[in-house]
């Protein structure tokens, strides 16, 4: 490591810290994009087997090169801009969709030292950046100048704003018990407690004492990423494909990249906030980044499982779930956690 730093220092001089940060960004983004590509493959395989099909199996062994072939196909296709579209915004919208999905990774810790920017308010940063993801969808819907796209955008805007509130409240509970806004601290706090002392640290992770919040966060995460059963903004059967109906080629692909990148992000955040991040579930195994990846994969599998299992929510049911079910649960649990922390039974000291 020192040799690399010295070599870089000699090569770039004063600009080396900036170059080194760029290298780190590439080291995060490139594997994630590969992860996105293979998540689409995994999704098609998993849903295929759940529906007693085989899924992609022609391109490469077991269809393993399928996502690369899909990507190439989309790269080579023409991007058609509708005649009456608002051209500038039409082009910018996919970028606005993917930029927050990538920018949020700046503060996501992979282990207690492996993090691009270990800032104090990283939880707030995540909430702020992910809340901007909705612009890509709204603007694409508006700029397309098409009824279906606009309907999809409106649905999506209302949905994401509603579920962001429950998401924020469940994160407030996490921040209360961990007494920190820093994601590294949030994970480290989960390694303390009675069960962790007995070597059963998976019982001292946040998911157990904050179980309702864990469920609310996970389900709101599905809603925030516009995944089935909350995919009313796409709603293939009612509004064709929703907000991206007018997009083709790479512009269309970027929306999908953003959706899958967001799925990976939500799974990483759920693992960090509630499932102990890189901590090992039992005392006799070492902590490590592989645990984080295992937890993320498990949650991603849940995402795919949901899609293969549940029918799409009707729009009013979706709004009811967000406002009339999740929000009251969050408000009540917030008070419960507050009282719990002030009582002698407090387990987070």
């Amino acid at each position: 490591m020192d040799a690399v730093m010295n070599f870089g220092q000699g090569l770039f001089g004063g600009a080396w810290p900036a170059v080194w940060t760029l290298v780190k960004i590439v080291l995060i983004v490139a594997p994630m994009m590969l992860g996105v590509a293979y998540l689409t493959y995994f999704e098609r395989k998993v849903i295929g087997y759940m529906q007693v099909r085989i899924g992609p199996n022609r391109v490469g062994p077991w269809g393993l090169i399928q996502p690369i072939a899909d990507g190439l196909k989309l790269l080579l296709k023409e991007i058609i801009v509708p005649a009456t579209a608002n051209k500038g915004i039409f082009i910018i919208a996919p970028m606005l969709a993917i930029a927050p999905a990538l920018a949020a990774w700046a503060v996501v810790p992979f282990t207690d030292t492996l993090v691009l920017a270990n800032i104090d308010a990283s939880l707030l940063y995540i909430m702020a950046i992910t809340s901007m993801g909705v612009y890509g969808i709204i603007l694409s819907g508006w700029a397309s100048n098409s009824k279906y796209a606009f309907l999809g955008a409106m649905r999506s805007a209302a949905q994401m704003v509603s579920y962001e509130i429950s998401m924020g409240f469940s994160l407030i509970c996490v921040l209360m018990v961990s007494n920190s806004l820093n994601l590294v601290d949030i994970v480290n706090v989960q390694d303390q407690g009675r069960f962790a002392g007995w070597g059963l640290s998976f019982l001292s992770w946040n998911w157990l004492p904050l179980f309702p919040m864990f469920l609310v966060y996970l389900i709101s995460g599905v809603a925030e990423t516009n995944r089935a059963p909350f995919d009313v903004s796409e709603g293939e059967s009612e509004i064709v494909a929703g907000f991206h109906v007018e997009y083709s080629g790479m512009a269309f692909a970027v929306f999908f990249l953003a959706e899958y990148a967001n799925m990976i992000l939500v799974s990483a955040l759920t693992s960090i906030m509630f499932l102990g991040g890189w901590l090992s579930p039992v005392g006799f195994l070492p902590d490590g980044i592989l645990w984080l990846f295992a937890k993320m994969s498990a949650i991603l599998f849940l995402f795919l499982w949901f899609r293969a299992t549940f029918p799409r929510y009707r729009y009013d049911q979706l709004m009811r779930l967000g406002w009339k079910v999740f929000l009251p649960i969050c408000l009540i649990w917030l008070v419960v956690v507050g009282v719990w922390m002030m009582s002698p039974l407090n387990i987070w000291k």
Partner: protein
Amino acid sequence: MDFQTGVFYFLSAILIFASLRVITARNPVHAALHLILAFFTCGGIWALLQAEFLAIAIILVYVGAVMVLFLFVVMMLDINIDRIRQGFWNYLPLGALLGLLMVMEMGLVLGSKYFQVPAAEAMVPAGVSNTKAIGALMFSDYVYPFELASLILLVGMIAAIVLTYRGPKKSRYTNPNQQVFVKAKDRVRVLQMPVEKD
């Protein structure tokens, strides 16, 4: 000029440009988008001043929530630019007066050093995060103003609901609460019929 000053001028230039476009853009959606850019840049400038909580809060609240709903409304409006321009000269004196007032207020605040108004310098001990310092102040020294502000927000919320309430719903609609609890046996009755014989 050091790096920070350079960043400051860069952000300020974008902020001024975006703010100007908010009032000059012909398309209301473009104006709203420039307002979003202005808020975002403003967050950048605050982050430069090491007020990271405020910087993130403005992006979280204004960019992430308020402007989304604002765009939502603006996109649905059918705005005729010529009709809006009609009353321009009638409203100009009032608008100019308000603008002048705001410039004066800003001048008083920003120039307080020159007018010998003792403004309290923000003192944050090293090692305490910005968020913690603001939180501690909010719930100790400024707890009454803070509660008052939240009360005003609550009143505003109730007012918005009252203003848009159009009396009880007369149309027939489905109640999701009942729908959720429906069981198959509420809807389907399985009959046992004896086989008919001649």
